[in-house]
């Protein structure tokens, strides 16, 4: 089972906050390598294309619950590689999950949760909070 250790997340080299304007010179290998770590070590992580405004929406929604998700932004050229890696991670975790990854993609507790649709739906039905607590993203 994945352990969520929030404090370690901040030290990831390729994690970037778009607001700081620091652009990682991410080659494909570097992205993919860091990706696995990022997914496994963060309670909540949002993967999105750089400059995607929908990722902003997901972030705000999660913020509203008191969660500060790790934001993993990639360039468009890296997208296919990242997609492959994510699908690999998904098969390793739970081979039964045949869903296609849509960006922005949210992973909770190392597992693929879904896209903005799923986040929105579970937010309204109230299912999101227990899930976040279970993953250790919330302590209330």
């Amino acid at each position, binding site marked *: 089972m994945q352990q969520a250790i929030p404090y370690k997340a901040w030290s990831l080299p390729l994690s970037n906050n778009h607001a700081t304007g620091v652009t990682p010179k991410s080659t494909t290998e570097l992205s993919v390598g860091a990706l696995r770590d990022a997914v496994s070590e963060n309670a909540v992580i949002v993967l999105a294309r750089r400059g995607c*405004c*929908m990722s902003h929406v997901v972030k*705000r*929604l999660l913020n*509203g619950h008191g969660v500060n998700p790790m934001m993993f932004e990639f360039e468009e050229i890296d997208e296919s590689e990242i997609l492959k890696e994510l699908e690999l991670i998904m098969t390793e975790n739970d081979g039964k999950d045949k869903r296609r990854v849509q960006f922005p993609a949210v992973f909770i507790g190392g597992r693929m949760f879904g896209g903005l649709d799923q986040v929105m739906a579970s*937010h*309204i039905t109230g299912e999101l909070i227990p899930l976040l607590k279970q993953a250790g993203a919330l302590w209330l």
Partner: protein
Amino acid sequence: MNSASMQFVMSRRMEIYEPMHQIGMWGEDYKSSDILNTSTIIEPVRKLGSENTSQGHSGTLDFKYDQEASKPTDKVQRRLAQNREAARKSRLRKKAYVQQLETSRLKLIQLEQELQHTRQQQGLYIGGGVEGSHIGLPASVNSGIAAFEMQYGQWLEEQNRLICELQTALSGHVTDIELQILVESGMNHYLELFRMKAAASKADVFYVLSGMWITSAERFFLWIGGFRPSELLKVLVPLIDPLTEQQIMEAFHLKQSCQQAEDALSQGMEKLQQTLSESVADGRLGEGSQHVPQTGTAMEKLGALVSFVNQADHLRQETLQQMCIILTIRQAARGLLALGEYFQRLKALSSLWATRPPCQPIS
């Protein structure tokens, strides 16, 4: 009233009647049709004013009935009276009919004006889009939008029918099962609308976003191409009384979740606006506008607008479905009815506003 004036009245009323028929009505007593005809032509003016004179024995006129005055007097009198009465009633009926025509005519003029007003209002926006500087295409050019407009017209008709059904069902005594069917129809109907809007957004997202397909009053409340779920909850929940404590709490939480989701979407839209204007300011409109392929172009950003509309509709759908979960069937039916009537009234308000008398000050 003597026969001449009576005949004048009758011939005026029944233009198709030949004088012969009138003779027939009075029976076989009067065989001299020639005399009757003569008296019809010659005498009418003189005799109209003298309605109260006795039926035929005025000295001024060589009344045709003098010849046989004594015998048929009562019969004649009765018939004349009946005719008078018939004529009077006929005049009254005619008057009423003409008045009705006048009223209908006025109403027709009013409706035509109303139609023209609302068309003008719609036309103002669509007309503004025809100018080259506008990104959106008017319905006459964009087939996807033309299709949507037609579908939406049909959707509205069906919606009105569903609302009527709900009204009937809730005012009478219907079983929960029947209400269940109605609620499901109502919900599916909204799903249908969201599907239509998704297709229309692909055709022209600005058309959907600027609410060109709804009336002006509805447009006032527009939020990302439709209604704002949390606002609707505020309006409708009080109308679904009585709610249990549990339900009130759940509805409150739902409203809060809605607001959070709306804020998140609104902020996302703001961010989109920001990056869009940056692209425009930098001249990065789209591929082909410069030699170097550009990233982060305005055209790319606009593509994201479609997902915003879809997400907003998704939120509306989720909210409606969650409400159905919180409420009992009867409450859900009342909620759907209140929702439908609310928008009907907004549309009516738009009409009222569009056809208000131009020179009257608004108090």
